[in-house]
């Protein structure tokens, strides 16, 4: 591999953003800013034909790195050399216009991705074929189902002929069958010594596409090696950061949320016993503050495995009544005995629902805290917990009668 030409050479690249430190005081006053490094001193060489995956937590700098390579923004310092034609699929369907027909959008989107008219003319039939849109190709895309929309968008993007292909979570949508078709198509593109750079939270996708994986953490490369060892490193690295106290006031909320309550903090009470495997009941205290008078407030705990696949949920269905401005500390326990060993991320939702099933969310945090179910020391070592194949939940011992 080392004798191949180097197609991407990143030297000492920093990317600095300015983060607002204080609210602006008047209409013409400038707010105070402080520097935030999304990427710090990145050095990376990628040779022709390598299939490189980039993994890391949200905010680790993965997408920023891809954006620099795709020339959407430029580095604050350092130098990047790219040898060859580079195409980026950061989001399929970018620039699609709902009013235009499928055919018109193929031309528009093709041009946005850098294709020439003659090239689109030549590939149009292939693209239409691949998308399985059939006669709907001459209908406005606003009448498409979301599946058709994604298929057409991917079809255009996948008919680029780059030397280097950049993918950013493009498989988040689409049904299983089409997803496989996309993967096959990407493997087809990659024939003939093409290079790929791929960001994903889906480890199975990384396993399937990549032969080298880079782990990013807070803007730095912390691991660079073969796929399996990198994924293992990433998983371990995640668990080392396990904390007992989580400040939730600054946690990310969805933008559409109309917050009526604030989940302030969460503390795992029995962290040491739990992590040591002595206790499989997770006991925690959550502190909530109501911003309005709230009645019948329920709490849902949504559990996902660290690779972002859903595991299940737990719920406090007995509603709480909280007065405006009042802070409530609630002690809760969560039985984790059915979860496979591994690292989990939990989200929290405060909501109320009426008899028709309509729910209103008062507060919602997708990633509130994390915990780890340790490997059971007594367990049969010949069984490895295959999260990918079996899911994350153990439904119990089979009884013989």
């Amino acid at each position, binding site marked *: 591999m080392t004798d191949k030409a180097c197609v991407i050479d990143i030297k000492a690249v920093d990317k600095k953003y300015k983060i607002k430190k204080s609210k602006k005081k008047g209409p013409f006053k400038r707010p105070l800013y402080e520097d935030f490094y999304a990427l710090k001193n990145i050095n990376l060489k990628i040779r022709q034909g390598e299939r490189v995956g980039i993994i890391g937590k949200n905010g680790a700098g993965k997408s920023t790195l891809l954006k620099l*390579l795709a020339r*959407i923004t430029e580095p604050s310092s350092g130098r990047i050399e*790219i*040898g060859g*034609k580079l195409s980026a699929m950061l989001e399929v369907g*970018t620039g699609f216009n709902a009013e235009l027909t499928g055919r018109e959008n193929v031309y*528009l989107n093709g041009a*946005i991705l850098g294709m020439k008219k003659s090239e689109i003319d030549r590939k149009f039939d292939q693209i239409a074929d691949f998308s399985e849109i059939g006669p709907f190709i001459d209908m406005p895309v606003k009448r498409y189902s979301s599946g058709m929309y994604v298929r057409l968008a991917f079809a255009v993007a996948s008919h680029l002929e780059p*030397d280097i292909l950049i993918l950013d979570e493009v498989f988040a949508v689409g049904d299983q069958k089409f997803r496989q078709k996309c993967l096959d198509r990407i493997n087809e593109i990659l024939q003939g010594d093409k290079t790929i750079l791929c960001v994903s939270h889906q480890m199975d996708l990384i396993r399937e596409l990549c032969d080298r994986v880079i782990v990013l953490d807070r803007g730095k490369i912390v691991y660079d090696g073969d796929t399996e060892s990198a994924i293992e490193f990433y998983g371990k690295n995640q668990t080392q950061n396990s904390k007992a106290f989580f400040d939730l006031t600054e946690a990310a909320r969805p933008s559409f949320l109309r917050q009526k309550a604030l989940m302030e903090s969460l503390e795992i009470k029995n962290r040491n016993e739990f992590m040591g495997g002595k206790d499989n009941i997770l006991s925690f205290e959550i502190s909530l503050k109501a911003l309005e008078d709230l009645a019948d407030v329920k709490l849902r705990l949504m559990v996902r495995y660290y690779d972002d696949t859903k595991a299940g949920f737990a719920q406090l269905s007995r509603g709480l009544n909280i007065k405006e401005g009042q802070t409530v500390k609630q002690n809760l326990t969560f039985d984790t005995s059915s979860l496979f060993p591994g690292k989990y991320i939990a989200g929290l939702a405060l909501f109320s629902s009426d008899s028709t099933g309509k729910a209103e969310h008062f507060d919602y945090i997708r990633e509130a805290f994390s915990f780890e179910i340790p490997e059971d020391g007594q367990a049969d070592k010949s069984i490895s917990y295959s999260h990918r194949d079996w899911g994350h939940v153990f439904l119990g011992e089979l009884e013989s009668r």
Partner: protein
Amino acid sequence: MQKIIIEAGGKNTRYFRDLWNYRTLAFNFAKRDITVRYKQTAIGIGWALIGPLLNMAVMSFIFGKLAGLPADGGAPYSIMVYSGLIAWNLFARTLTVSAATFSSNADLMKKVYFPRLAAPLGQTAAILADSLISLLLLFLLYAITGYKPPYSRLIFCLPALLLPFLLGFFAGIFLAPSTIRRRDLNHALPFLLQVGQYLSPVVYSFSLISTGFSGKAFWLYTLNPMTGAINTFKWCLIGDLDFHLPSFLISLAWIGLLIPLGLSRFRKAEKDFVDLV
């Protein structure tokens, strides 16, 4: 193999070659704008005609009939107003669209690289196409009013349209970086342009100014880049008008000034505007 070098504050020496390679994109932006603008309308592209036509009717009535202002060179008032409006609308719309290009295309620019100038180029080309359609209607007006246009210089109206177009485009991309962080300018522009329309010989004749004002006031008026642009355009379409060379040269000088200013300001902003929106 081509080698792309990305550096902090680096000069992209191949910018214009890149832009040329993305001509398909600019063309598709134009096509998109034209197609989408008149989708789901009964008379389609007819709306490109009705707007200026109604405007012309109102203006001719108020300024020509009620106020009794004289038209240029003995032409019907409607023809003078209409030709003024074609040039002014082209300028105003080109400026508005290219000044707002970063915010109106932000979603796209955050996801894909292309030379950012391709967006305003394509979008304003669509406006130029609208102007050409409105120009066709002018010939219908000639027929209806029975006015004999100056056939020998009629053809020059096409290059003359470039004056308002280039002024609008380069002033627009010069202002575009100011609309990234704060959108105030996007709201202020319509008012400023409305005032500007009355400070340019659009709905009244230039002779009204050249005879009514003298000395400093007249020269101040002529310094307005659109004065020369509209004068020149009207000169191509209306006979018995003298070519006003000073205002034409002033317009050219403005274009010569705005091209380097606009390009350098736009290209400086396009590099990292994605981080600011």
